[in-house]
């Protein structure tokens, strides 16, 4: 026999290397992206079907769990001067606006005690107080073609919501938590709060609300890294 590699050997080796390829991928994502892409349209359609404008039942004040709300940030915690803070509302609206905290506080205050659910698996019953996003959008008047709402935060975080979820009566731009003004860790001066979306959808330190008629390639900080976009509860 010559030194050249026999056909059988070659086949064995190629078999081994493809097996190791498979094993390697076991440790990492193993088609999880493809599985997500295949099933997400069905999951999203189901969630949209379950979504109504009916308020989710709320909890009583004494059921609040102050210690259970954990702090998650992807970068640093921005310190925002409340006096200089402005909220921009723009995009597909008839009346682009710029609101100060004082402006926001003159609008009707809505308080709710709801369950905040994090994608990680924990949940906390929290009281949030703020302005209904519905109310802000009523003032800004979305154009008929507006379908999505983008939120930009002072720390560079970004999110996008469907307009139906954004106008849910319990979707608030909150400036109070558990009866007190929001702390910087929890998103002061203004953050999203809602019982109908997972925690990563509820941006903190929101400085800009932009309505669009379509989803842009970037849909959200965590979504662009693999979490599902709709994130409905």
């Amino acid at each position, binding site marked *: 026999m010559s030194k050249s590699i026999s056909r059988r050997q070659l086949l064995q080796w190629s078999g081994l290397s493809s097996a190791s390829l498979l094993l390697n991928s076991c*440790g990492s*994502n193993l088609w999880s992206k493809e599985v997500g892409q295949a099933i997400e349209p069905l999951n999203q359609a189901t969630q949209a079907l379950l979504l109504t404008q009916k308020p989710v*039942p709320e909890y009583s004040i004494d059921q609040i769990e102050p210690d259970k709300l954990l702090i998650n940030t992807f970068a640093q915690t921005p310190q925002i001067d409340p006096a200089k803070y402005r909220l921009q509302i723009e995009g597909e609206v008839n009346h682009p606006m710029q609101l100060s905290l004082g402006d926001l506080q003159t609008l009707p205050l809505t308080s709710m005690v709801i369950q905040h659910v994090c994608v990680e698996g*924990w949940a906390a019953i929290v009281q949030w107080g703020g302005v209904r996003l519905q109310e802000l959008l009523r003032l800004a008047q979305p154009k008929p073609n507006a379908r999505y709402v983008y939120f930009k935060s002072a720390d560079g975080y970004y999110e996008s919501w469907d307009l139906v979820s954004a106008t849910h009566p319990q979707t608030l731009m909150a400036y109070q938590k558990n009866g007190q003004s929001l702390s910087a860790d929890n998103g002061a001066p203004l953050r999203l709060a809602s019982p109908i979306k997972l925690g990563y959808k509820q941006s903190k330190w929101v400085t800009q609300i932009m309505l669009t008629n379509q989803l842009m390639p970037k849909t959200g900080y965590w979504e662009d890294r693999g*979490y599902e976009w709709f994130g409905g509860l």
Partner: protein
Amino acid sequence: MTSARPTKRTKSPRLPTQTLPAKIFHWTNLISLFVMLFSGLQIYNANPVFGGRSGWNFPDYLTLGGWLAGGRNWHFAAMWFYALNLLWYGLYVMVSRRWQIRYASGSDIKALRVSQNAKRKNYALHRLVYTAIIPILVLSIASGLGMYKPASLHWLASLFVDWQTLRTVHFIAVPIFILFTFVHSLLALRVGSIRLIKSMFV
């Protein structure tokens, strides 16, 4: 009962056979449950049910998906196969009246208590075990749905009192299913040897 009673002893006993729906159900159930189990442990590790962030994590080789988002993708894909499989099989069992002959009944309980026939007792125990798993299968769907959609299905989630109970009930399904797979297989072996198991999967 008449068909189960041995009549004349022959050299080659009739091989056990299973209906095609029963085979499809078993295959789909086994595969989707294992996908849900390993991806579920991936999800568990993001925030352990017991101990939260400082809780003990399952080793990587028991997880599927690579990280939380991947685990969720697998989990929420497999749930459709698992739940719809249970649904159509449940309907089939009702419509075909299989529930009258294939599941545990009072006569099995009686056999376990008074029968002197070891084979009959094994058979009764096996029927009792696989009948008892049905409520567990349904309970894991209910607790899973309650956690997946706690706002839309608030009524369902609130049946479980609070979030921690909901998570615990859902997680308990893992050891139960593993135990059940072993016990179900062992009892099937005792009742009908390897031929019975082959008849269900081949």
